[in-house]
């Protein structure tokens, strides 16, 4: 009995003393006082020093895209630091190209705010806000792909360019003990600012996709922030458009097509959509509507694993193969691609070989 008491007392005292020391250190050594944060040489904030740049910006309600929650494993939260912030850390190097290193681009989750700091961020990030939205409907597009409609609160609205994305927060649920943000493209028309649609495929073991597919119910409230992204519809030219997507990559293309319909844009557009089997195709009725309503639009699905029993009469093979066959005259075309890195790389290769200018190829890799 006595030994149990002594053991408990010693362990408690020991942990207590260490906890006290650490708290004390955090208050004294870890306290960097107030520092100045200057953004784009115009906006000035006074913030508490000692945190990472990402956390500091979030505390000022400026949202930098980040998918890993500040662990330095996604490489999204890049910010140009003009002054302050200290030297580049080895934990950032894997994510930065040589050009970015020269420009003093940093990962904002690794760079700490310990002195006055001056940074540059794209103006549109000020447009980024955090929203609490209600899940209005969940619809199965295929057995593994769901369409979510998220409705904004009365009086709130979102302003985005067709092709941009938002980040959806997956909360803690059974089997997941950390909050994560995942990026999803908006699939609905920008003219409707009171709701957005997302198309989310199920990834086995994926934290956010498991949440959406297994736990999320109609009527639930979720947290999103956005819009983000430099993949969006460009209206500088009115040349022919090549749209390419596989799987859930259809989402931003849908938004672009809705935008063209709502604004009566008279451009020729061909949409190449890759899937494995006929069961993986979805929203075919919407595509038929587009073919009727848009100025000059063609939907070209292609299947990489069509079997004889499918009776598939359309295109076969991967999208890069079909594009290689279809594109005859490259002059003055513009391309929008969305899908996995393998697809994007192979399609960019085909398109540039055909003579399409690289700066006219816009893509969103995920």
């Amino acid at each position, binding site marked *: 009995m006595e030994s149990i008491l*002594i053991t408990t007392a010693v362990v408690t005292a020991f942990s207590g003393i260490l*906890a006290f020391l650490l708290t004390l*250190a955090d208050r004294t050594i*870890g306290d960097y006082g107030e520092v100045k944060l200057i953004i784009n040489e115009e906006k000035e904030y006074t913030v508490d020093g000692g945190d990472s740049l990402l956390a500091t910006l979030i505390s000022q309600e400026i949202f930098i895209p980040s998918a890993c929650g500040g662990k330095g494993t996604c490489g999204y939260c890049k910010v140009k630091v003009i002054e302050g912030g*200290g030297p580049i850390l080895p934990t950032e190097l894997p994510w930065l190209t040589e050009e970015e290193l020269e420009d003093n681009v940093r990962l904002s989750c*690794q760079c700490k705010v310990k002195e006055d700091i001056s940074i540059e961020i794209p103006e549109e990030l000020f447009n980024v806000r955090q929203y609490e939205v209600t899940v209005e409907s969940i619809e199965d597009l295929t057995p593994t792909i769901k369409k979510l409609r998220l409705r904004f609160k009365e009086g709130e609205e979102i302003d985005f360019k067709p092709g941009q994305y938002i980040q959806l927060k997956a909360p803690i649920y059974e089997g997941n003990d950390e909050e994560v943000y995942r990026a999803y493209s908006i699939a609905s028309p920008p003219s409707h600012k009171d709701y957005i649609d997302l198309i989310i495929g199920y990834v086995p073991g994926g934290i956010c996709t498991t949440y959406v597919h297994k736990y999320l119910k109609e009527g639930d409230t979720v947290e999103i922030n956005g819009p983000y992204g430099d993949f969006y519809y460009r209206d500088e030219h009115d040349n022919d458009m090549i749209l390419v997507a596989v799987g859930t990559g259809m989402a931003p293309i849908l938004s672009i097509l809705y935008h063209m319909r709502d604004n009566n844009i008279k451009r020729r557009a061909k949409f190449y959509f890759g899937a494995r089997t006929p069961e993986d195709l979805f929203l075919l009725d919407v595509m038929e509507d587009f073919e009727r309503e848009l100025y000059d639009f063609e939907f070209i699905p292609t299947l990489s694993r069509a079997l004889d029993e499918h009776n598939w009469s359309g295109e076969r093979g991967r999208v890069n193969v079909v594009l290689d066959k279809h594109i005859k005259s490259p002059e003055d075309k513009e391309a929008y691609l969305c899908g996995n890195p393998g697809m994007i790389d192979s399609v960019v290769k085909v398109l540039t070989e055909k003579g399409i200018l690289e700066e006219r190829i816009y893509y969103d890799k995920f």
Partner: protein
Amino acid sequence: MIELNPFVIFFAAIFTNNMILSNFLGMCSFIAVSKEIPTSLGLGQAVTFVLTFTTILNYLIYHHILVPLGLEYLRFIVFIVSIAAFVQLLEMIVERYFPNLYYALGIFLPLITVNCAILGVSLFMVIREYTFLQSLGFGIGSGIGWTLAIVAMAGIRQRLREDSIPKGLQGPGITLIITGLMALAFVGFSGIVQIQ
């Protein structure tokens, strides 16, 4: 037990009783961070630094708190907690007062809170009944030995990058095989001194 000169223990901890290559301790950061020489050197320095100080700290805690109270069996939990707290504290101090050191090795500190080589050294020190100076030699030597092993591994892996390795063996697989070969090579040192 024969009284060993602290310097002999220091030497043995580097070559004959290397933490990684003869005890296979601290393997996770050894495998994960041995891709580039500069990074692994930084991590190795941080490990040496922490090993030296935690060995001293745990020696004092063990002989001046646990032994007088007859609580030797608590050493596992006490050592783990004191190492974790010490590394936290060290990170804060280095970050605040030694910025250059922080950028060189401070960012690795959180990685080694749970490095089992650190706990291993503290426990070996107790099991082998080292004196204070012997423990100090053992701590520093183990850190240098760990650094030597990880830097050698990073050098080998930098060269391996050009080679075609069977798919199933890429990454940790081939690293473990190389570790085994390095351990065999280090057996060659074992005749020089033996501490146990």
